[in-house]
């Protein structure tokens, strides 16, 4: 769950990281006021969750408050990586002597957090790592031992930084590690961290990602930063369909059904579980099918939940048929899912035997489930039909319909 730059900086500020004077503007007038208050040349930066702001022309400088207002109007409408600006950050502009990079993330292979530091900041760190490996250090650290400054010191010194710079950078970078661990972040990054010509060290740009699993634990912080529980902060904002899906999922605690992603095809999918859904979605697409949605049901959802999910998928314009498919299930029950999808079709005013292109869920309580499906004349199959072939049957029905 990504934070905007201004939110990341608000978090940094709470922990005493050095930042330039700034303000978040939501109008040209407001931008002028902030620039006036700062009283020196400023930089205006579009607040989007995507990279590539500079390239898109959404970061610009202004020497006077009037110019700041004008630039606000100029860059606010710019779409960066498909995203509209939420606001514009107006920040003091200072002459830079040297740029550094500091980032903390998880290394899934070593199963430890890793501090990445470079004395070549301001550009893409992956590129620096490839072209100037001696200017990038990677320092893994323990999650059990307390965080002490030697981790940051070793990481910084490994890139050849010494003298006063080493001693001034160390506490800043060490605090970044503290922030990373305290808030269950998956990324805490300062790029660039700069030394100004006047000798001060300042965080110029930064960004943090919080683990979705830890949102509840940090609800207070998120509320204070103004991040609402409805903000998914994925690569794109959720659609109405996806928001309604989340409501279905939240409607009762039994199992998972409703975690949907919208696509623009015509075949509705009621699929599961986590891995099975990925497998089945590929199987539909590779055989020429056009899914209307992705979803993953699992954990034995209630009849009502599956019913509501079915109705949601069938409410999408152009969706006449659904395919109901899972891997062999052991926890989720075949009969319960069968009841849910049939009920959903009926409540949506549709004939289950026409609407359900295929039902392929083998496993727990399948004898009972198959009786229900037979009674309602739904086309179903057992485990002798592969997931791939079941998806193929659904796609073939769409083509002949």
């Amino acid at each position: 769950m990504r934070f905007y730059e201004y939110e990341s900086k608000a978090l940094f500020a709470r922990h005493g990281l050095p930042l330039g004077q700034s303000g978040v503007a939501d109008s040209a007038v407001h931008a002028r006021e902030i620039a006036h208050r700062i009283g020196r040349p400023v930089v205006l930066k579009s607040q989007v969750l995507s990279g590539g702001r500079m390239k898109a022309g959404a970061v610009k400088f202004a020497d006077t408050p009037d110019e700041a207002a004008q630039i606000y109007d100029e860059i606010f409408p710019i779409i960066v990586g498909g995203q509209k600006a939420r606001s514009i950050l107006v920040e003091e502009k200072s002459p830079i002597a040297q740029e550094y990079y500091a980032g903390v993330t998880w290394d899934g292979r070593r199963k430890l957090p890793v501090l990445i530091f470079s004395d070549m900041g301001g550009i893409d760190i992956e590129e620096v790592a490839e072209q100037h490996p001696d200017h990038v250090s990677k320092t893994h650290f323990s999650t059990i031992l307390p965080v002490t400054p030697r981790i940051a010191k070793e990481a910084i010194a490994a890139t050849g930084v010494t003298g006063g710079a080493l001693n001034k950078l160390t506490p800043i970078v060490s605090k970044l590690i503290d922030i990373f661990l305290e808030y269950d972040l998956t990324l805490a990054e300062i790029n660039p961290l700069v030394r100004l010509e006047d000798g001060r060290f300042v965080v110029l740009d930064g960004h943090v990602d919080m683990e979705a699993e830890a949102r509840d634990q940090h609800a207070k912080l998120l509320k204070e930063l103004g991040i609402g529980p409805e903000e998914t902060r994925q690569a794109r904002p959720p659609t109405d369909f996806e928001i309604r899906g989340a409501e279905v999922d939240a409607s009762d605690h039994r199992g998972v059904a409703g975690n949907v992603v919208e696509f623009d095809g015509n075949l509705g999918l009621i699929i599961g579980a986590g891995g099975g859904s990925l497998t089945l979605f590929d199987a539909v697409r590779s055989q020429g099918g056009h899914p209307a949605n992705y979803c993953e049901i699992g954990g034995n959802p209630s009849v009502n939940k599956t019913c509501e999910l079915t109705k949601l998928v069938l409410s999408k314009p152009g969706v006449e048929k659904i395919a109901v498919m899972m891997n062999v299930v052991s926890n989720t029950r075949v009969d319960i899912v069968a009841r849910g999808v049939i009920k959903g079709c009926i409540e949506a005013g549709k004939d289950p035997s026409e609407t359900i292109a295929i039902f392929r869920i083998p496993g727990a309580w399948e004898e009972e489930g198959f009786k229900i499906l037979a009674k309602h004349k739904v086309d179903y199959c057992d485990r002798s039909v592969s997931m791939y072939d079941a998806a193929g049957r659904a796609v073939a029905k769409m083509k002949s319909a």
Partner: protein
Amino acid sequence: MPGLFIDVKVSDKAAKDTAVVAKLAEVCPVDIFAQDQGGALRIVEENLDECVLCDLCMSAAPSNSVEVVKLYE
């Protein structure tokens, strides 16, 4: 609205026995049985289709007084 897949039948005698009704309301994991303030049995129709066929109601009541009917058989 009655269930599409499941119906339950409770004998008159069991339905009037407040102790049996209380037990039914307690054991059912999907709340098909409820007890009104006067102690009378109320079948919660919207929960009928949630029945997981656990048979706990049948063992909680005197034998043959509760029947779970699968409407798809």
